[in-house]
Protein backbone atom coordinates (compact mmCIF):
# COMPACT_ATOMS: atom_id res chain seq x y z
CA UNK A 1 0.00 0.00 0.00
CA UNK A 2 2.81 2.40 0.91
CA UNK A 3 4.37 1.64 -2.43
CA UNK A 4 1.22 2.72 -4.26
CA UNK A 5 0.94 5.90 -2.21
CA UNK A 6 4.56 6.85 -2.79
CA UNK A 7 4.49 6.10 -6.54
CA UNK A 8 0.93 7.03 -7.41
CA UNK A 9 -0.30 9.15 -4.48
CA UNK A 10 -0.01 12.38 -6.43
CA UNK A 11 -1.80 10.89 -9.45
CA UNK A 12 -4.65 9.59 -7.25
CA UNK A 13 -4.90 12.91 -5.41
CA UNK A 14 -5.24 14.68 -8.74
CA UNK A 15 -7.90 12.17 -9.77
CA UNK A 16 -9.75 12.98 -6.55
CA UNK A 17 -9.69 16.62 -7.62
CA UNK A 18 -11.01 15.68 -11.06
CA UNK A 19 -13.83 13.68 -9.45
CA UNK A 20 -14.78 16.71 -7.34
CA UNK A 21 -14.58 19.03 -10.34
CA UNK A 22 -16.78 16.80 -12.48
CA UNK A 23 -19.27 16.30 -9.65
CA UNK A 24 -19.50 20.04 -8.94
CA UNK A 25 -20.04 20.92 -12.61
CA UNK A 26 -22.57 18.12 -13.02
CA UNK A 27 -24.45 19.10 -9.88
CA UNK A 28 -24.46 22.79 -10.74
CA UNK A 29 -25.95 22.30 -14.20
CA UNK A 30 -28.03 19.37 -12.99
CA UNK A 31 -29.63 21.59 -10.34
CA UNK A 32 -30.53 24.18 -12.96
CA UNK A 33 -32.01 21.52 -15.23
CA UNK A 34 -33.83 19.97 -12.28
CA UNK A 35 -35.26 23.30 -11.18
CA UNK A 36 -36.48 24.19 -14.66
CA UNK A 37 -38.08 20.80 -15.35
CA UNK A 38 -39.34 20.41 -11.79
CA UNK A 39 -41.26 23.68 -12.10
CA UNK A 40 -42.49 22.74 -15.57
CA UNK A 41 -43.87 19.60 -13.92
CA UNK A 42 -46.15 21.49 -11.54
CA UNK A 43 -47.45 24.12 -13.91
CA UNK A 44 -51.12 24.24 -14.95
CA UNK A 45 -50.14 24.10 -18.60
CA UNK A 46 -50.47 20.57 -19.96
CA UNK A 47 -47.71 20.99 -22.57
CA UNK A 48 -45.23 22.07 -19.88
CA UNK A 49 -46.07 19.05 -17.77
CA UNK A 50 -45.74 16.75 -20.80
CA UNK A 51 -42.27 18.16 -21.54
CA UNK A 52 -41.20 17.32 -17.99
CA UNK A 53 -42.57 13.78 -18.20
CA UNK A 54 -40.90 13.05 -21.54
CA UNK A 55 -37.53 14.42 -20.41
CA UNK A 56 -37.57 12.51 -17.15
CA UNK A 57 -38.72 9.27 -18.78
CA UNK A 58 -36.06 9.36 -21.46
CA UNK A 59 -33.15 10.20 -19.18
CA UNK A 60 -34.23 7.87 -16.38
CA UNK A 61 -34.78 5.12 -18.93
CA UNK A 62 -31.21 5.15 -20.23
CA UNK A 63 -28.36 3.83 -18.08
CA UNK A 64 -25.77 6.54 -17.64
CA UNK A 65 -23.01 4.45 -19.16
CA UNK A 66 -25.02 4.23 -22.38
CA UNK A 67 -25.88 7.92 -22.16
CA UNK A 68 -22.16 8.67 -21.80
CA UNK A 69 -21.40 6.83 -25.04
CA UNK A 70 -24.16 8.75 -26.80
CA UNK A 71 -22.99 12.12 -25.55
CA UNK A 72 -19.27 11.52 -26.03
CA UNK A 73 -19.45 9.89 -29.45
CA UNK A 74 -22.96 10.66 -30.64
CA UNK A 75 -23.15 14.44 -30.21
CA UNK A 76 -19.92 15.21 -32.12
CA UNK A 77 -20.96 12.67 -34.78
CA UNK A 78 -24.33 14.32 -35.13
CA UNK A 79 -22.90 17.83 -35.24
CA UNK A 80 -20.42 16.74 -37.91
CA UNK A 81 -22.74 14.74 -40.12
CA UNK A 82 -26.03 16.55 -39.68
CA UNK A 83 -24.97 20.14 -39.06
CA UNK A 84 -21.76 19.83 -41.08
CA UNK A 85 -19.45 21.48 -38.53
CA UNK A 86 -16.39 19.31 -38.95
CA UNK A 87 -14.14 20.72 -36.24
CA UNK A 88 -16.56 20.12 -33.35
CA UNK A 89 -15.51 17.71 -30.60
CA UNK A 90 -16.38 17.27 -26.96
CA UNK A 91 -13.65 16.43 -24.51
CA UNK A 92 -14.26 13.96 -21.71
CA UNK A 93 -14.92 16.70 -19.13
CA UNK A 94 -17.52 18.43 -21.31
CA UNK A 95 -19.22 15.16 -22.24
CA UNK A 96 -19.07 14.01 -18.63
CA UNK A 97 -20.62 17.23 -17.37
CA UNK A 98 -23.45 16.96 -19.89
CA UNK A 99 -24.16 13.35 -18.85
CA UNK A 100 -24.12 14.05 -15.14
CA UNK A 101 -26.18 17.22 -15.54
CA UNK A 102 -28.84 15.45 -17.63
CA UNK A 103 -28.93 12.44 -15.35
CA UNK A 104 -28.99 14.26 -12.02
CA UNK A 105 -31.28 16.89 -13.58
CA UNK A 106 -33.93 14.28 -14.34
CA UNK A 107 -33.93 12.92 -10.80
CA UNK A 108 -33.76 16.40 -9.32
CA UNK A 109 -36.76 17.47 -11.41
CA UNK A 110 -38.81 14.68 -9.88
CA UNK A 111 -37.63 15.55 -6.37
CA UNK A 112 -38.56 19.19 -6.87
CA UNK A 113 -41.90 18.37 -8.49
CA UNK A 114 -42.77 15.95 -5.69
CA UNK A 115 -41.61 18.44 -3.07
CA UNK A 116 -43.83 21.19 -4.41
CA UNK A 117 -46.79 18.86 -4.77
CA UNK A 118 -46.33 17.61 -1.22
CA UNK A 119 -47.36 21.04 0.07
CA UNK A 120 -51.04 20.96 0.80
CA UNK A 121 -53.12 22.48 -1.99
CA UNK A 122 -54.90 24.58 0.63
CA UNK A 123 -51.71 26.59 1.17
CA UNK A 124 -51.76 27.85 -2.39
CA UNK A 125 -55.51 28.42 -2.31
CA UNK A 126 -55.24 30.37 0.94
CA UNK A 127 -52.42 32.51 -0.40
CA UNK A 128 -54.30 33.19 -3.64
CA UNK A 129 -57.49 34.09 -1.81
CA UNK A 130 -55.49 36.61 0.24
CA UNK A 131 -54.73 38.28 -3.08
CA UNK A 132 -51.20 37.03 -3.78
CA UNK A 133 -50.44 36.42 -7.45
CA UNK A 134 -49.57 32.80 -8.42
CA UNK A 135 -45.79 33.25 -8.66
CA UNK A 136 -45.65 35.31 -5.48
CA UNK A 137 -47.65 32.66 -3.63
CA UNK A 138 -45.34 30.00 -5.01
CA UNK A 139 -42.26 31.92 -3.97
CA UNK A 140 -43.41 33.04 -0.52
CA UNK A 141 -45.72 30.29 0.66
CA UNK A 142 -45.32 27.03 -1.23
CA UNK A 143 -41.59 26.88 -2.06
CA UNK A 144 -40.26 27.57 1.46
CA UNK A 145 -42.30 24.66 2.76
CA UNK A 146 -41.41 22.46 -0.21
CA UNK A 147 -37.69 23.11 0.03
CA UNK A 148 -37.54 21.84 3.59
CA UNK A 149 -38.98 18.48 2.64
CA UNK A 150 -36.79 18.33 -0.46
CA UNK A 151 -33.43 18.97 1.21
CA UNK A 152 -32.63 15.48 2.54
CA UNK A 153 -33.62 13.90 -0.78
CA UNK A 154 -31.60 16.43 -2.74
CA UNK A 155 -28.55 15.78 -0.57
CA UNK A 156 -29.03 12.09 -1.24
CA UNK A 157 -29.14 12.82 -4.97
CA UNK A 158 -25.96 14.90 -4.68
CA UNK A 159 -24.16 11.94 -3.12
CA UNK A 160 -25.48 9.56 -5.76
CA UNK A 161 -24.35 11.94 -8.49
CA UNK A 162 -20.92 12.22 -6.92
CA UNK A 163 -20.57 8.46 -7.03
CA UNK A 164 -21.99 8.32 -10.55
CA UNK A 165 -18.92 10.22 -11.75
CA UNK A 166 -17.19 6.82 -11.62
CA UNK A 167 -19.31 5.71 -14.59
CA UNK A 168 -17.59 8.35 -16.70
CA UNK A 169 -14.36 6.39 -16.45
CA UNK A 170 -15.63 4.62 -19.59
CA UNK A 171 -15.16 7.72 -21.72
CA UNK A 172 -11.63 8.13 -20.43
CA UNK A 173 -12.20 10.96 -17.97
CA UNK A 174 -9.29 10.75 -15.48
CA UNK A 175 -11.42 10.60 -12.33
CA UNK A 176 -10.77 8.21 -9.44
CA UNK A 177 -11.98 4.95 -10.99
CA UNK A 178 -10.31 5.54 -14.35
CA UNK A 179 -7.05 6.41 -12.60
CA UNK A 180 -7.48 3.51 -10.17
CA UNK A 181 -7.77 1.09 -13.11
CA UNK A 182 -4.53 2.47 -14.42
CA UNK A 183 -2.71 2.10 -11.16
CA UNK A 184 -3.99 -1.49 -10.92
CA UNK A 185 -2.83 -2.15 -14.47
CA UNK A 186 0.65 -0.81 -13.78
CA UNK A 187 1.21 -2.35 -10.37
CA UNK A 188 -1.17 -5.32 -10.47
CA UNK A 189 -2.09 -4.43 -6.88
CA UNK A 190 -5.83 -4.48 -7.12
CA UNK A 191 -7.13 -4.71 -3.58
CA UNK A 192 -4.74 -2.13 -2.18
CA UNK A 193 -5.50 0.35 -4.95
CA UNK A 194 -9.25 0.02 -4.62
CA UNK A 195 -8.96 0.40 -0.87
CA UNK A 196 -7.21 3.75 -1.33
CA UNK A 197 -9.79 4.81 -3.92
CA UNK A 198 -12.64 3.84 -1.58
CA UNK A 199 -11.15 5.89 1.25
CA UNK A 200 -10.82 8.90 -1.07
CA UNK A 201 -14.49 8.66 -2.08
CA UNK A 202 -15.45 8.31 1.56
CA UNK A 203 -13.57 11.50 2.43
CA UNK A 204 -15.28 13.51 -0.32
CA UNK A 205 -18.71 12.18 0.56
CA UNK A 206 -18.28 12.76 4.29
CA UNK A 207 -17.33 16.38 3.59
CA UNK A 208 -20.34 16.77 1.31
CA UNK A 209 -22.65 15.24 3.93
CA UNK A 210 -21.33 17.56 6.64
CA UNK A 211 -21.85 20.61 4.43
CA UNK A 212 -25.33 19.40 3.62
CA UNK A 213 -26.16 19.04 7.32
CA UNK A 214 -25.10 22.64 7.89
CA UNK A 215 -27.29 23.78 5.02
CA UNK A 216 -30.21 21.76 6.29
CA UNK A 217 -29.93 23.34 9.72
CA UNK A 218 -29.85 26.85 8.27
CA UNK A 219 -32.93 26.25 6.14
CA UNK A 220 -35.09 24.63 8.78
CA UNK A 221 -35.93 27.96 10.41
CA UNK A 222 -38.76 26.60 12.47
CA UNK A 223 -36.58 24.42 14.67
Amino acid sequence: MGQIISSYGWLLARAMGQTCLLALLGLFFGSIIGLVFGILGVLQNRVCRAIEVVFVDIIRGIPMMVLAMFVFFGIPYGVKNILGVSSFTLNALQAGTICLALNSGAYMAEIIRAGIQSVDRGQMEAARSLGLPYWRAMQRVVLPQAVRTMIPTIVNQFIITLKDTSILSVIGFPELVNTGKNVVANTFMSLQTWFIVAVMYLIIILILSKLAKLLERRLSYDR
Partner: protein
Amino acid sequence: MFKPFEYTDDNGDFVGIDVDLLAAIAEDQGFTYDLNSVGWDSAIAACQAGQADGMIAGASITDERRASGWIFSDGYYQATQCMTVAADSDIAGFGDLAGKTVAVKTGTQGAAYAESLKDEYGFDIVYMDDSPTMYQTVTGGQAVACFEDTPIMAASIKSGDLPLRIVEGSENEGAPYGFAVFSADEQELIDLFNAGLKSIRENGVYDEILAAYLG
Protein backbone atom coordinates in the same frame (compact mmCIF):
# COMPACT_ATOMS: atom_id res chain seq x y z
CA MET B 1 -12.62 -8.01 -24.48
CA PHE B 2 -9.22 -7.57 -26.01
CA LYS B 3 -9.36 -8.48 -29.65
CA PRO B 4 -7.72 -10.62 -30.99
CA PHE B 5 -6.43 -12.03 -27.68
CA GLU B 6 -9.83 -12.74 -26.18
CA TYR B 7 -13.22 -11.82 -27.53
CA THR B 8 -16.59 -13.26 -28.46
CA ASP B 9 -16.87 -14.12 -32.14
CA ASP B 10 -19.88 -13.96 -34.46
CA ASN B 11 -21.09 -17.36 -33.24
CA GLY B 12 -21.02 -16.26 -29.61
CA ASP B 13 -17.96 -18.40 -28.87
CA PHE B 14 -15.23 -17.08 -26.68
CA VAL B 15 -12.08 -17.19 -28.79
CA GLY B 16 -8.75 -15.45 -29.28
CA ILE B 17 -5.02 -15.99 -29.30
CA ASP B 18 -4.86 -16.33 -25.50
CA VAL B 19 -7.83 -18.71 -25.43
CA ASP B 20 -6.45 -20.98 -28.16
CA LEU B 21 -2.89 -20.93 -26.82
CA LEU B 22 -4.08 -21.91 -23.36
CA ALA B 23 -6.19 -24.72 -24.82
CA ALA B 24 -3.27 -26.02 -26.89
CA ILE B 25 -0.89 -25.82 -23.94
CA ALA B 26 -3.33 -27.58 -21.61
CA GLU B 27 -3.83 -30.33 -24.16
CA ASP B 28 -0.09 -30.72 -24.60
CA GLN B 29 0.56 -30.88 -20.85
CA GLY B 30 -2.59 -32.80 -20.00
CA PHE B 31 -4.19 -30.42 -17.51
CA THR B 32 -7.75 -29.19 -17.39
CA TYR B 33 -8.98 -25.72 -16.44
CA ASP B 34 -12.03 -23.51 -16.24
CA LEU B 35 -11.83 -20.30 -18.21
CA ASN B 36 -13.89 -17.32 -17.08
CA SER B 37 -13.96 -14.08 -18.99
CA VAL B 38 -14.23 -11.54 -16.20
CA GLY B 39 -12.46 -8.56 -17.74
CA TRP B 40 -9.05 -7.09 -17.09
CA ASP B 41 -9.62 -5.38 -13.74
CA SER B 42 -11.51 -8.29 -12.22
CA ALA B 43 -8.97 -10.81 -13.50
CA ILE B 44 -6.22 -9.07 -11.54
CA ALA B 45 -8.36 -8.92 -8.40
CA ALA B 46 -9.46 -12.56 -8.80
CA CYS B 47 -5.86 -13.81 -8.90
CA GLN B 48 -4.88 -11.65 -5.94
CA ALA B 49 -7.82 -12.89 -3.93
CA GLY B 50 -7.13 -16.51 -4.85
CA GLN B 51 -10.41 -16.94 -6.72
CA ALA B 52 -8.46 -17.69 -9.89
CA ASP B 53 -5.19 -19.58 -10.21
CA GLY B 54 -3.79 -17.55 -13.06
CA MET B 55 -4.66 -15.05 -15.75
CA ILE B 56 -3.92 -14.91 -19.45
CA ALA B 57 -5.02 -11.54 -20.71
CA GLY B 58 -2.40 -10.14 -23.03
CA ALA B 59 -0.55 -8.91 -19.94
CA SER B 60 2.91 -7.50 -20.57
CA ILE B 61 5.72 -8.75 -18.38
CA THR B 62 7.00 -5.70 -16.53
CA ASP B 63 9.35 -5.21 -13.60
CA GLU B 64 6.79 -3.08 -11.79
CA ARG B 65 4.25 -5.93 -11.86
CA ARG B 66 6.90 -8.44 -10.77
CA ALA B 67 7.81 -6.16 -7.87
CA SER B 68 4.20 -6.44 -6.64
CA GLY B 69 4.63 -10.19 -6.23
CA TRP B 70 3.34 -11.49 -9.56
CA ILE B 71 5.03 -14.40 -11.30
CA PHE B 72 5.05 -14.47 -15.09
CA SER B 73 5.57 -17.31 -17.52
CA ASP B 74 7.98 -17.03 -20.42
CA GLY B 75 6.79 -14.54 -22.99
CA TYR B 76 4.22 -16.13 -25.31
CA TYR B 77 3.83 -13.25 -27.69
CA GLN B 78 5.93 -10.27 -28.54
CA ALA B 79 4.87 -7.31 -30.55
CA THR B 80 5.94 -3.78 -31.22
CA GLN B 81 3.56 -0.91 -30.53
CA CYS B 82 2.76 1.87 -32.95
CA MET B 83 0.86 5.12 -33.21
CA THR B 84 -2.31 5.21 -35.29
CA VAL B 85 -4.16 8.26 -36.53
CA ALA B 86 -7.27 8.97 -38.60
CA ALA B 87 -6.74 8.14 -42.27
CA ASP B 88 -7.10 11.80 -43.27
CA SER B 89 -5.02 13.19 -40.40
CA ASP B 90 -2.02 15.51 -40.97
CA ILE B 91 -0.07 13.98 -38.11
CA ALA B 92 3.19 12.60 -39.44
CA GLY B 93 5.07 11.93 -36.21
CA PHE B 94 5.19 12.45 -32.46
CA GLY B 95 6.28 16.05 -32.99
CA ASP B 96 2.77 16.90 -34.23
CA LEU B 97 1.13 15.77 -30.98
CA ALA B 98 1.94 18.84 -28.85
CA GLY B 99 -1.16 19.97 -26.95
CA LYS B 100 -3.29 17.21 -28.49
CA THR B 101 -5.09 14.30 -26.85
CA VAL B 102 -4.04 10.70 -27.41
CA ALA B 103 -6.13 7.62 -26.51
CA VAL B 104 -4.66 4.45 -25.04
CA LYS B 105 -6.01 1.27 -23.53
CA THR B 106 -5.58 0.83 -19.77
CA GLY B 107 -2.81 -1.58 -18.83
CA THR B 108 -1.42 -2.15 -22.29
CA GLN B 109 2.10 -1.82 -23.58
CA GLY B 110 0.74 0.83 -25.94
CA ALA B 111 -0.26 2.88 -22.89
CA ALA B 112 3.22 2.48 -21.43
CA TYR B 113 4.71 3.55 -24.75
CA ALA B 114 2.53 6.67 -24.91
CA GLU B 115 3.38 7.50 -21.28
CA SER B 116 7.07 7.32 -22.10
CA LEU B 117 6.62 9.89 -24.89
CA LYS B 118 4.10 12.14 -23.17
CA ASP B 119 6.44 14.60 -21.47
CA GLU B 120 8.85 14.88 -24.35
CA TYR B 121 6.17 15.71 -26.92
CA GLY B 122 3.67 17.42 -24.60
CA PHE B 123 0.40 15.60 -25.29
CA ASP B 124 -2.43 14.45 -23.01
CA ILE B 125 -3.49 10.83 -22.54
CA VAL B 126 -7.01 9.48 -22.05
CA TYR B 127 -7.42 5.90 -20.89
CA MET B 128 -10.14 3.76 -22.46
CA ASP B 129 -11.23 0.27 -21.40
CA ASP B 130 -11.26 -1.53 -24.73
CA SER B 131 -10.02 -1.32 -28.30
CA PRO B 132 -13.32 -0.47 -30.05
CA THR B 133 -13.84 2.54 -27.78
CA MET B 134 -10.25 3.60 -28.25
CA TYR B 135 -10.51 3.39 -32.04
CA GLN B 136 -13.77 5.30 -31.92
CA THR B 137 -12.20 8.18 -30.04
CA VAL B 138 -9.78 8.54 -32.96
CA THR B 139 -12.31 8.08 -35.77
CA GLY B 140 -14.69 10.42 -33.92
CA GLY B 141 -12.01 13.06 -33.38
CA GLN B 142 -12.06 13.08 -29.55
CA ALA B 143 -8.40 12.02 -29.70
CA VAL B 144 -5.95 12.58 -32.54
CA ALA B 145 -4.10 9.29 -32.17
CA CYS B 146 -4.05 5.97 -30.33
CA PHE B 147 -1.32 3.51 -29.43
CA GLU B 148 -1.76 -0.19 -30.14
CA ASP B 149 0.20 -3.35 -30.86
CA THR B 150 1.28 -3.13 -34.49
CA PRO B 151 -0.01 -6.53 -35.75
CA ILE B 152 -3.34 -6.03 -33.96
CA MET B 153 -3.75 -2.54 -35.32
CA ALA B 154 -2.97 -3.71 -38.83
CA ALA B 155 -5.41 -6.63 -38.54
CA SER B 156 -8.18 -4.44 -37.02
CA ILE B 157 -7.86 -1.77 -39.71
CA LYS B 158 -8.11 -4.48 -42.35
CA SER B 159 -10.93 -6.55 -40.84
CA GLY B 160 -12.99 -3.62 -39.56
CA ASP B 161 -12.31 -1.41 -42.55
CA LEU B 162 -11.46 1.38 -40.11
CA PRO B 163 -10.59 4.84 -41.45
CA LEU B 164 -7.28 4.74 -39.59
CA ARG B 165 -3.65 4.69 -40.63
CA ILE B 166 -0.51 3.55 -38.82
CA VAL B 167 2.06 6.33 -38.67
CA GLU B 168 5.26 5.21 -40.33
CA GLY B 169 8.30 5.04 -38.12
CA SER B 170 6.26 5.23 -34.90
CA GLU B 171 7.07 1.72 -33.69
CA ASN B 172 8.95 0.93 -30.50
CA GLU B 173 11.02 -2.07 -29.41
CA GLY B 174 8.13 -4.12 -28.07
CA ALA B 175 7.70 -6.20 -24.92
CA PRO B 176 6.56 -9.78 -24.28
CA TYR B 177 3.15 -10.91 -22.99
CA GLY B 178 3.05 -13.52 -20.24
CA PHE B 179 0.67 -15.81 -18.36
CA ALA B 180 0.53 -14.54 -14.77
CA VAL B 181 -0.09 -15.98 -11.31
CA PHE B 182 -0.09 -14.15 -8.01
CA SER B 183 0.94 -16.82 -5.51
CA ALA B 184 4.22 -18.75 -5.34
CA ASP B 185 2.04 -21.83 -4.78
CA GLU B 186 1.10 -21.63 -8.44
CA GLN B 187 4.67 -22.10 -9.63
CA GLU B 188 3.69 -25.55 -10.89
CA LEU B 189 1.15 -23.98 -13.22
CA ILE B 190 3.80 -21.63 -14.59
CA ASP B 191 6.12 -24.59 -15.18
CA LEU B 192 3.37 -26.48 -17.01
CA PHE B 193 2.60 -23.40 -19.09
CA ASN B 194 6.27 -22.87 -20.01
CA ALA B 195 6.77 -26.53 -20.93
CA GLY B 196 3.59 -26.57 -23.02
CA LEU B 197 4.48 -23.29 -24.71
CA LYS B 198 7.90 -24.65 -25.64
CA SER B 199 6.40 -27.77 -27.11
CA ILE B 200 3.66 -26.03 -29.18
CA ARG B 201 6.31 -23.66 -30.49
CA GLU B 202 8.29 -26.66 -31.67
CA ASN B 203 5.41 -28.58 -33.24
CA GLY B 204 4.02 -25.61 -35.14
CA VAL B 205 0.68 -25.26 -33.31
CA TYR B 206 1.79 -21.87 -31.96
CA ASP B 207 2.40 -20.47 -35.43
CA GLU B 208 -0.93 -21.81 -36.66
CA ILE B 209 -2.83 -20.07 -33.87
CA LEU B 210 -1.11 -16.74 -34.44
CA ALA B 211 -1.59 -16.99 -38.18
CA ALA B 212 -5.29 -17.70 -37.70
CA TYR B 213 -5.80 -14.41 -35.85
CA LEU B 214 -3.26 -12.08 -37.33
CA GLY B 215 -3.29 -13.35 -40.91
